[in-house]
C-alpha cells in the first residue's frame, strides 16, 4: 500500500478542483464484521499513520460508525495493577471516509488522510 498523506482540507480542495465526487463519512458493511482481511487493512493503515507495528481493533471496527477512538493499550504489572493509573494523554480518533470507490482513513487530531486500497466501505 502506498500512503498518500495530506491534510483533509488539502484533500477536499483537490477533490473539489478535480470535480471529484464528495467525500462522505463511511462505514464497513455489516457483512464485514467478522472479516479479518478487511480489518487487517484498517489495522495496517492506522499502525502506519501512528508509526507503530500494530494496533488492536475490534472485529467490528467501523461497522455502524465512521469514527473510532484509540488510546494507549492498558499495561499492567505482574500483580495485575494498571501501570498508568493516572493517564493524562488524551485519546485519539480516526474517521473512515468514502469518495467514489475509494475509502480513506483520517487521523483526526493531525488531519492526515490516507487511502486504504482494497478496502470496501459504504456511505454511512
Amino acid at each position, binding site marked *: 500500500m502506498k500512503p498518500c498523506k495530506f491534510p483533509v482540507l488539502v484533500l477536499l480542495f483537490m477533490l473539489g478542483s478535480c470535480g471529484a465526487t464528495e467525500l462522505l463519512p463511511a462505514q464497513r458493511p455489516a457483512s464485514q464484521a467478522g472479516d*479479518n482481511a478487511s480489518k487487517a487493512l484498517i489495522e495496517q493503515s*492506522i499502525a502506519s499513520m*501512528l*508509526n*507503530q*507495528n*500494530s*494496533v*488492536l*481493533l*475490534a*472485529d*467490528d*471496527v467501523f461497522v455502524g460508525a465512521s469514527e*473510532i*477512538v*484509540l*488510546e*494507549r*493499550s*492498558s*499495561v*499492567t*504489572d*505482574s*500483580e*495485575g*495493577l*494498571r*501501570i*498508568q*493509573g*493516572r*493517564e*493524562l494523554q*488524551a*485519546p*485519539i480518533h480516526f474517521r473512515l471516509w468514502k469518495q467514489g470507490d475509494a475509502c480513506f482513513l483520517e487521523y483526526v487530531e493531525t488531519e492526515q488522510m490516507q487511502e486504504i486500497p482494497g478496502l470496501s466501505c459504504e456511505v454511512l
Partner: protein
Amino acid sequence: MLRKSFSSGFLLLSSAILTACGGGGGNSSPPAVMQAVTNQDPTLNDVLPFMIFEAGVFEDAEIFANACENPRSGSQYDDFQANELAEKYWLRSWSNETYLWYDEITDLDPDSAYDKFAYFDLLKTPAVTPSGAPRDQFHGTMDTGEYQQFSQSGVTFGYGAELIYARNDPPRELYIAYVEPVSPAAGSGLQRGMRIMEIDGIDLVNTTSPAEIAMLNAALSPETNGETHTLGVLASGDPDTGTYPQHEVSAASITTSPVLSYDIKNTASGNVGYLVFNNHVATAEEELALVFEALLDGSVNDLVLDLRYNGGGLLAIASQLAYMIAGDANTNGRVFETLEFNDKHPTTNPVTMQAITPGPFYKQALGFSLAAGIALPSLELNRVFIISGSGTCSASESIINSLNGIGVEVILIGDTTCGKPFGFYPQDNCGTTYFTIQFKGVNDIGFGDYEDGFTPLNSGKTGITLPGCAVLDDLSKGLGDPAEARLAAALAYRDAPGTCPAPPPASSLSTITISPLDQLSLQPVTQDTFVRNNRILGLPQ
C-alpha cells in the same frame, strides 16, 4: 543521525577533561585533547571517556538524551551512537530533575557494574509508608515498542474473563471475578465465582511442574486469535468431586464494557443507583453519561459506585464521574485534583513545561467518545457509597479523594484501596520506556497523602480511614445482587448508618496480593483481560 554538541556551560565534563589530561592550571597551553574539545565543538562521545562522577553534581539530562548503546534506526528516532554509560547518566540526571522524591535517592556513580536496568532500579526512594510498605512500588521499565501500542478504546485481546487469585501457590485458588457480557468467556458459560481447577487437563491447583506451569501461563496469556483452551471449573457452592465441567474458550478481540452493569434498587427509603465501573477508558465518557441520565430518570437519592476492580486510567474520566455524582452545587469553583511535582517545579510542569493549574471537575464531555461540550448529567449527591478493594487504584482513588476534598461524604464498603496517589509521564530513552513517580495528586484542600490507601473505619488496617465497613469480596453472588456481601452491607449501612457486619480478619481481606515491585519487569501479556488484573502463575518457592 543526530549528534549533540555541548554548550560552554558543560563545566563538569570540561573540568573532567582537563583533569584527565593533566591540564587546567598554570600558564601552559591546553593539552591536545582539550584543544580538540574546545576547538571542534565536542560531542558527548568525545567527553564520555573523561567523565568523572561527582556525587550531588548533575548535568542537564537533555545532554544525554537519546545517546544510546544500541540506537534505533528510523527517522522517527533521535537516537545516536554512544554507550550504556551515557544512558545511565541520562537516568541519573532525569531522575534528579523529575523524580518526586529526588532528594531521597542515593547518588550512585553511573560508571558501575550495574547495567542500566539495575541502575535505574536504584534510582528511587528507600522510604516506607506508615504501614511499612515501600513508598515507591511503581518504579519500572518496559520496551518502548510494546508500551506505545494503541488499542481501540476498551478493546483487549483474550477470553473476556477477569480473574483474581486468592492464593498463587499450591493449592492455588484462582477465581473468575467477572466476565465481559459479549465475550468467548460469557459464550462458554463462565461466570463470576467459578474457580478454575484445570486448564487443558493440567491441574492448576496443585501442579509444581515447571513445564506444566509454563503451559498454564501460556494458556492464560493467549497470543493468537482463535487460540483455544479448555477450562475445568468448579462453580461456587458446588462440592469438589474431582471432576469438573469443561468450558472451551477461544481468544479474540474483546470489546469491554467500562460500565459492566447498572441498576436501580427500589427500597423503602428511596431509589438507590448501583453501577459497576471497571475502567477509565475513553468509551466510558459516553457510557457513564447515559447511565447517569438513566439514574436521574430513576430518581435515585443514593448511589453505590462499585470500583472494586477499577485500577484507573484516564484521569479526566474520573473528574467527570466525580462531577456526575456531586453536581454543580458541590463542585463549582472547586478543585478535582492538582498535580504536585517535586520542589524544583512548584509552578511549571517539568514534562509539558506548562503552568501547573488545578484540575477542575469536568462538567462537560471532552470529545473522548461524546461530542465535546455536551453538558453531563449529575445526581447532586452529598454522599456516595463506594465499594472498594485492593484493585481500586489511581484514578479511582482520585474520585474518592476529590469528593472527600469538597465535603461529599464517601462511605467505603469492602477493602483498602491500593494507595497510589502518584503518577508519571512514561519516558522513552533508547527504546526503553521508564516509569518513575513524578507527581502526587492532591484534592481541593491540598490532601493527597494516602500511600496506604483508603480503608473502611473498622478494617483494622493502616490507611486513611473513611466511614464504612470492611467486607470480603463475595464471589458466591453476582455483582449487583442485593445479597452480595458488599452491596448488602452498603444497603444496610444506608438504612442504619454506622452499622456493619462483623469485619473479617484484616489478614483475610485482600484477594489480590500486592508484592513489592522494586524489581518490576513489565510484561506485555498483561494487555490480556484474562490475566490483566491477576498474576502469572509462579513456580513454587
